[in-house]
């Protein structure tokens, strides 16, 4: 995944920020416990968001305890306690998505990056196997998405919608595994779909210049509409629909954190991506 699902720190209360950080640290610890110390390096904001959502949905966070950071023993940090399997699921998703990302990179990156990916691939494959044994349904959803993505991109009639569909369906599938009933499944699936679509299209917007240079597939380049205003309206709509659907969930735990992400964090990230893109364009025109 891509690290776009972040909080906007300025708009959080200190205690909420601490709570978020303690989930982040808790997930890091779980990665170390389940998949070895090196896999802590693949800790991502996206999977932290997933862990926060899981803990909120099954209300499994029981409190916080103090500890020390493994990488920097001088730093004290807090860990969120969880009585469910939110951490181990989020750790499994981290490992699985990291492995498929590497497979993807081997397919379409430059010589050096490809070589580096080949070297680390076996280590990731081993961990991915372990994770998929525990959560085969997550592994299936991610694998299916990779296949559909290739199919979608090689289709001559590909559009912005159809290119974003596999990622959107993946997040939708993963998050709706948590549903307790049919109505909640529909709501979660809608929230997931639009967040997934937003992730894919934000990533695409981020890569426009790079993809143009290397002649890689990019949905915005392909559709011929790369202006910032258009892209931002496309991304806005995904966030708006995700937020509308989110409002139908009865979230209690971590509510301010999740809302902070949807209302400030994601738009903030989107602005950062789009403004960066604008800067690149300005430089070229100078």
């Amino acid at each position, binding site marked *: 995944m891509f690290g776009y699902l972040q909080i906007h720190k300025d708009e959080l209360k200190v205690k909420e920020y601490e709570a978020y950080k303690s989930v982040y640290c808790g997930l890091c610890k779980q990665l170390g416990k389940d998949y070895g110390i090196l896999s802590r390096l693949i800790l991502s904001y996206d999977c932290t968001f997933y862990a926060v959502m899981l803990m909120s949905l099954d209300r499994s966070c029981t409190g916080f305890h103090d500890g020390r950071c493994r990488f920097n023993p001088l730093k004290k940090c807090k860990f969120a306690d969880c009585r469910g399997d939110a951490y181990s699921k989020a750790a499994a998703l981290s490992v699985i998505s990291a492995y498929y990302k590497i497979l993807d990179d081997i397919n379409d990156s430059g010589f050096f990056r490809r070589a580096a990916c080949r070297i680390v691939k076996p280590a990731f494959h081993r961990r991915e196997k372990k994770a998929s044994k525990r959560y085969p349904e997550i592994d299936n959803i991610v694998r299916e998405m990779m296949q559909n993505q290739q199919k979608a991109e090689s289709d001559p009639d590909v559009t912005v*919608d*159809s290119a974003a569909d596999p990622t959107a369906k993946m997040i939708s599938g993963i998050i709706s595994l948590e549903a307790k009933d049919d109505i909640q499944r529909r709501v979660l699936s*809608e929230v997931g779909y639009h967040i997934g*679509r937003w992730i894919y299209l934000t990533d695409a917007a981020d890569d426009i210049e790079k993809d143009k240079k290397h002649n890689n597939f990019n949905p915005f380049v392909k559709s011929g509409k790369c202006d910032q205003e258009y892209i931002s309206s496309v991304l806005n709509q995904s966030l*708006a629909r995700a937020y509308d659907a989110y409002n*139908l969930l009865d979230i209690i735990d971590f509510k301010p954190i999740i809302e902070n992400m949807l209302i*400030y964090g994601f738009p903030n990230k989107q*602005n950062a991506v789009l403004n960066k893109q604008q800067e690149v364009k300005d430089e070229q025109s100078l």
Partner: protein
Amino acid sequence: MNNPYEVLGVSPNATDEEIKKAYRNLAKKYHPDNYADSPLADVAEQKMKEVNEAYDEINRMRQKGRGTGSQSSGSYSGAQNSKYYSVRIYIQRNMIAEAERILDEAPASERDAEWHFLKGMCAYRKGFNEQANQYFTTACNMDPNNQEYRTAVNNMNRQRSYGYGGYTANPDASVTGCTICDICSAIMCVNCLCNCCRSGF
């Protein structure tokens, strides 16, 4: 029904933007989420219904005043006796594949505004926002007086400008220096200090 303007708490001269804002605030306030565990849930639901009706009523009245007048209201009842009745039922039940199959069978010569609107609905339900946007816009261009199509386009535009909370398209706007509040509190502080001195004498 009560005066719709009263229900929304705005004056009849309010601009569309003000009405939309008032409606949005009320809708947020009476949102079922806020009353999930409350014994007042049914009350909130009733309020929400009133607000919705009032907003629709105002929109309808204003649309009529603005449009060509005679035709515009008739198009709204078209839903029941439409030739795409079964398609609408399928969409309502979230059976999008069936709805699309029937639509795609229609020959190109019979693809009218409603056909485009319903194709847009299917795309929208699937999350294909760009496709939906194109179909809705086409439907609206083919039949500009139809309230249903116009509402769909307006809804798309609302979402595309993402009016929730902190989103600002212009990054500079989020940096605030000295607000009215700062000035007021500064004046209050000075005032306090002055009073202190005076009482000391």
